[in-house]
């Protein structure tokens, strides 16, 4: 896309713990602040998107109706697609094409979750699917979200010799970035040894390979080129978007060892007319270190099997060729049940020069990657500035 639709407002709640706060209240807070950031008002909003299943991971929405009513919105465009934590990246791509087609002028995308105090349906949170239909052949064996990341990573280690230390460097990099971010959940620097010596949760995933658990939220605002020019901040243009689904069943993991990230990334690059070498910073969904690891390879920043060497080269560090998760990511800064909205917000902040953690110099092109459903869903958005 060429300067047709822009993100004009972005806001991440500084909350990291919010005991007793209804997630909807955080939605409202973030929407107001994102609109203020854009120089727009509530009455400008005619489109709304949120993921309708976020209740399974600490949110309060089981459909978009309830939240729309609570907020008092009357959208003529809505989208409640839910493919897990990265859904908000999908909402962004779909909002962009819908705005370009004239279905809405100002679309708000918001997320909030309070998984530490909000009632969490634990069985379904871990299971993702019910023990009926395809899930009946997997759920009885008690897979967990973290063991799924473990299955993919163990196979990669077996096939390519990737090590726990290489994986740990992702978490160490995020923590180093978080050290600069006053809102980050954890800011004390840590080492590779800290990560690999932390308790094993599901091999080869250690505790410090896992995201923080916070209570927070965020929102972004998109509009068309005409209105974007009149907004408070410089437009962050949506340049490319791609998405892909593959099977959810673990028994088919061999078929998706090259994950759907490959396809969603390729589509986003093609729409933007650029390639991985043109990306100044990548905000990569980091529920666990392997979700970053597979994204580095399958988004084409390095070849399949070379992720470990790529990390060893220092490329993903703040001083490297591809700084990632510059706010500290979900691994150190902010990850309620879901991370998707935050990869978008941080990409916008980097392009504006407003990074709260590490700011990439001369950042002109940013990539935000969302994933969901056990490596089954991938969404890639590429953004740029004038």
């Amino acid at each position: 896309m060429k300067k047709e639709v822009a993100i004009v407002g972005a806001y991440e709640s500084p909350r990291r713990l919010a005991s007793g706060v209804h997630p909807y209240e955080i939605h409202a807070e973030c929407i107001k602040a994102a609109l203020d950031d854009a120089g727009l008002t509530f009455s400008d909003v005619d489109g709304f998107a949120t993921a309708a299943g976020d209740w399974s991971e600490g949110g309060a929405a089981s459909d978009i109706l309830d939240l729309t009513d609570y907020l008092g919105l009357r959208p003529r465009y809505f989208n409640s697609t839910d493919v897990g934590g990265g859904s908000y990246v999908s909402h962004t791509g779909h909002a962009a094409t819908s705005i370009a087609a004239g279905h809405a002028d100002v679309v708000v995308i918001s997320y909030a979750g309070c998984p530490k105090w909000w009632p969490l349906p634990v069985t379904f949170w871990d299971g993702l699917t019910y023990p009926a239909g395809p899930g009946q052949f997997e759920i009885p064996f008690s897979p967990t979200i973290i063991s799924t990341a473990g299955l993919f990573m163990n196979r990669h280690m077996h096939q390519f010799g990737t090590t726990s230390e290489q994986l740990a460097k992702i978490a160490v990099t995020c923590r180093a970035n978080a050290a600069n971010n006053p809102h980050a959940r954890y800011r004390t620097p840590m080492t590779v040894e800290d990560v690999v010596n932390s308790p094993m949760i599901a091999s080869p995933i250690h505790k410090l390979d896992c995201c923080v658990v916070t209570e927070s939220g965020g929102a972004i605002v998109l509009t068309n080129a005409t209105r974007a020019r009149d907004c408070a901040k410089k437009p962050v243009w949506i340049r490319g978007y791609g998405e892909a689904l593959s099977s959810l069943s673990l028994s088919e993991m061999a078929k998706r060892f090259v994950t759907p990230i490959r396809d969603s990334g390729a589509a986003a690059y093609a729409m933007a007319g650029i390639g991985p070498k043109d990306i100044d910073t990548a905000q990569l969904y980091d529920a666990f270190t392997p979700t970053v690891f597979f994204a580095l390879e399958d988004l084409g920043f390095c070849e399949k099997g070379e992720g470990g060497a790529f990390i060893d080269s220092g490329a993903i560090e703040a001083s490297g060729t591809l700084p990632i998760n510059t706010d500290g990511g979900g691994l150190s800064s902010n990850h309620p049940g879901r991370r998707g909205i935050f990869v978008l917000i941080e990409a916008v902040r980097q392009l504006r020069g407003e990074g709260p953690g590490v700011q990439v110099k001369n950042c002109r092109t940013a990539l935000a990657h969302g994933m969901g459903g056990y490596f089954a869903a991938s969404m890639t958005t590429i953004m740029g500035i004038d």
Partner: protein
Amino acid sequence: MSGKDARRIAPMMDNFNEPFWSAAREGRLVVQRSKSTGAYQWPPRPRLLPDWDDDMEWTEVPGNGTVYSFSVVYRSSHTYPPTPYVIAVIELDCGVFFTSNIVDVDPEKVRIGMKVKVALEPQDEKISLPVFSPRN
């Protein structure tokens, strides 16, 4: 979590998958197979991939395979199995992959490439689940 009431989440049988669970209860492992090409399919689907052909049947397969990947689970919100347990993807000799647990072995001894065999583990009067253990 574990305790005397700890148990696996039970699969919900439906008409379509009933042949699998009935066979499992009899100690047999069955998967879908194309009548025309002989290709096996798992997990079961309403039709055969990639062409959505419906010329298929349930057929018994020997439950021998190798571990494609695994993870030893030390922390789990499931009540069963007790931790640590092994979640694994097993490649059967006929070419399909099963998700299951590797049992009757020290979890830390499990390796990718380990040869395993199936056992149908009774859960109740209707359901037996395919679990795998090392074989020589």
